[in-house]
């Protein structure tokens, strides 16, 4: 087979090098920064209910992010990652999927999870690592996961989820589920070997996967252009791997929705994996442990603030008469109240029982693990004041 391919090569007799910038990929934009639709552009078919659900989710995520950064500053949670400025990328793409499609995120896709129906209480329970957290309080805040909602649990190592998405989609294809897997990651993660392995394998095996790169300009402090990569971003890599590829304005929720909707069709109907590069900007710091003033200017941030995806979509909806300023304010206030109420409740819920420490390492705890737990519990009983979180209900409790 390799031989045949060689024979098809066009022969040239003079050396010439392709320039590294030979492939420059344009960016799909439906909504202009002022919230009006480009002349000649066709907005995707989104009815009022869907549009308002998308807007509603954006509002929720914005207030959730804002309040939880504040909660971290107050010392109520240990850590937080905001998706400020990138809400359209995750929510617009999630809205174009089927609920049965698997979502594998990096850690800045709370919008996609909220769109799927993760409740404000579920968010809070994870953020406070309490006993109601589906993840049993084992991972840092924002490492959400929910099998019922087909949202794979987030893990901190970068890019590991990308080849996993290829494998998951392979299983979907073999089982003829009619579903696909969407995998989110940043432009920094796209430097990892796992990214390259994943896209190559997806193209070779023709799996129903959508690889969604949120190019938000920074990997912590490292700027994308010139320091993360020298070429035309991430999109050309899809072409190099033999994959359908599109670049969209990640702050334009209509462009994101349209591209993902078409990508999903290619994925599930033709088993064509697709790479989408959504151009955006991480308005927030990398995390609550980061301070962007050390590596970028206020002017740069202001320039991007003008492209805000939420304001842009809101203007569009108001022009369409599906929403008024007052509606928007009311939704925001309602979300804020819900976030504050859930926060107060979740922070009072106790940590999981100490017995949970050894569960789920294996399907059932080994003899060694049981012995280690008993030793630990004997120690806690001896020094209960040193372990207040668990000592009070070490015997009995609700386990």
């Amino acid at each position, binding site marked *: 087979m390799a031989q045949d391919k060689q024979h098809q090569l066009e022969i040239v007799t003079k050396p010439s090098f392709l320039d590294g910038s030979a492939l420059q990929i344009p960016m799909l934009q439906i909504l202009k920064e002022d919230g009006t639709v480009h002349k000649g552009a066709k907005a995707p078919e989104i009815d009022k209910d869907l549009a308002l659900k998308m807007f509603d989710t954006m509002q929720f995520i914005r207030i959730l992010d804002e309040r939880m950064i504040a909660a971290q500053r107050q010392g109520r949670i240990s850590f937080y990652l905001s998706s400020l400025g990138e809400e359209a990328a995750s929510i617009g793409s999630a809205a174009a999927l089927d609920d049965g499609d698997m979502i594998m995120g990096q850690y800045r896709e709370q919008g996609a999870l909220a769109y799927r129906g993760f409740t404000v209480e579920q968010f809070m329970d994870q953020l406070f690592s309490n006993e109601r957290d589906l993840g049993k309080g084992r991972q840092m805040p924002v490492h959400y996961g929910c099998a019922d909602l087909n949202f794979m649990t987030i893990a901190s190592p970068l890019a590991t989820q990308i080849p996993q998405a290829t494998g998951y989609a392979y299983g979907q294809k073999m089982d003829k589920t009619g579903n696909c897997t969407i995998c989110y990651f940043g432009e920094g993660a796209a430097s990892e070997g*796992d990214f390259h392995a994943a896209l*190559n394998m997806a193209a070779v095996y023709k799996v129903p996967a959508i690889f969604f790169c949120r190019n938000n300009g920074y990997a912590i402090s490292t700027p994308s252009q010139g320091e993360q990569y020298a070429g035309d971003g991430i999109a050309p890599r899809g072409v190099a791997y033999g994959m359908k590829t599109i670049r969209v304005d990640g702050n334009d929720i209509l462009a994101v929705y349209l591209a993902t909707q078409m990508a999903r069709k290619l994925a599930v109907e033709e088993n064509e994996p697709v790479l989408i590069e959504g151009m955006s900007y991480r308005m927030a710091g990398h995390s609550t442990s980061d301070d962007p003033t050390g590596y970028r200017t206020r002017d740069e941030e202001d320039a991007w603030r003008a492209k805000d995806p939420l304001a842009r979509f809101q203007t569009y909806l108001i022009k369409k008469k599906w929403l008024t300023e007052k509606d928007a304010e009311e939704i925001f206030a309602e979300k804020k109240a819900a976030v504050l109420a859930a926060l107060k409740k979740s922070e009072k819920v106790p940590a999981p029982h100490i017995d949970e420490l050894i*569960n789920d390492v294996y399907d059932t705890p080994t003899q060694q693990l049981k012995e280690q737990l008993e030793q630990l519990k004997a120690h806690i009983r001896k020094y209960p004041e040193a372990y207040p979180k668990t000592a009070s209900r070490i015997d009995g409790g609700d386990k």
Partner: protein
Amino acid sequence: MANMNLLQAINSALDIAMAKNDKVYSFGEDTGAFGGVFRATSKLTDKYGRDRNFNTPLVEQGILGFANGLASQGSYAVAEIQFGDYIFPAFDQIVNESAKFRYRSGNEFNVGGLTIRTPYGGGIAGGHYHSQSPEAYFAHTPGLKIVMPRNPYMAKGLLLSAIFDPNPVLFMEPKRLYRASTGEVPEEEYTLELGKADIVREGKDLTIVAWGAQVEMAEKAAEKAAEDGIDCEVIDLVSLLPWDIDTVAKSVMKTGRLVVTQEAPLTNGFASEVAATIQDKCFLYLESPIARVCGLDVPYPLCHEKEYFVDHLKVYEAVKASMFY
């Protein structure tokens, strides 16, 4: 029953697993129609099609990433890493992903259907990069199971258990014995329990613990010691994670002496774990220090392989030293 070598036994286990369950997939570098560089996956593409037994691109981290994803979807992913020496690009996917998948999600998701097959070990003139025994790196990782069979019968029964075990299993195959070790193996399906050691020779004077290909050296040393009137008990650990502490401890309480032997380098090898645990459990029963008979702390050599190799003579000498301490 049929006479099989270790490769044929592996192949038979894969064949049975794939026939039994449509969601069993086998893949790796060159493992497709070609059947793998050792032919462990021979004829599986003919029988089950190239969607179920196939080649992967040459990328170990991708193989394990793909395998984790496929297993998390509910399939049984049997991934081959061509040589244990080349497993390290996949270390992150195994240690940070496979091993923690269930725990970190609170059991929302798991990769219990994952089995990683890889040949390991020396004695084949393979130099640095076709000879290593990297089990200890993985034995330091909660969430994995590690199995190392010593012969064809064990290999088949253990691999069938590993594939359908609800936890990710690293299955390390002693490549020195792929064709060298032959024996009677049932043609039909059977399973052997993971996590259980096997007493391959009973004795009352001294216990030798080994796993994988090294069991052969332990047995030979025991035979030689028997000529001197030393009655050794030989235990094949079979599983390193979790490992059968009780069987070893019980044996050492009976014999009072322990020699642990491994192919891998001495420092921080799994033999050290066995020694530490047994001195804790059996301190008052010990008649002599626990001995570790291991490879030297050097990269696996080529021209001095014979000298480096932990042969039966080195084990035999350790047995005598323990007896006459």
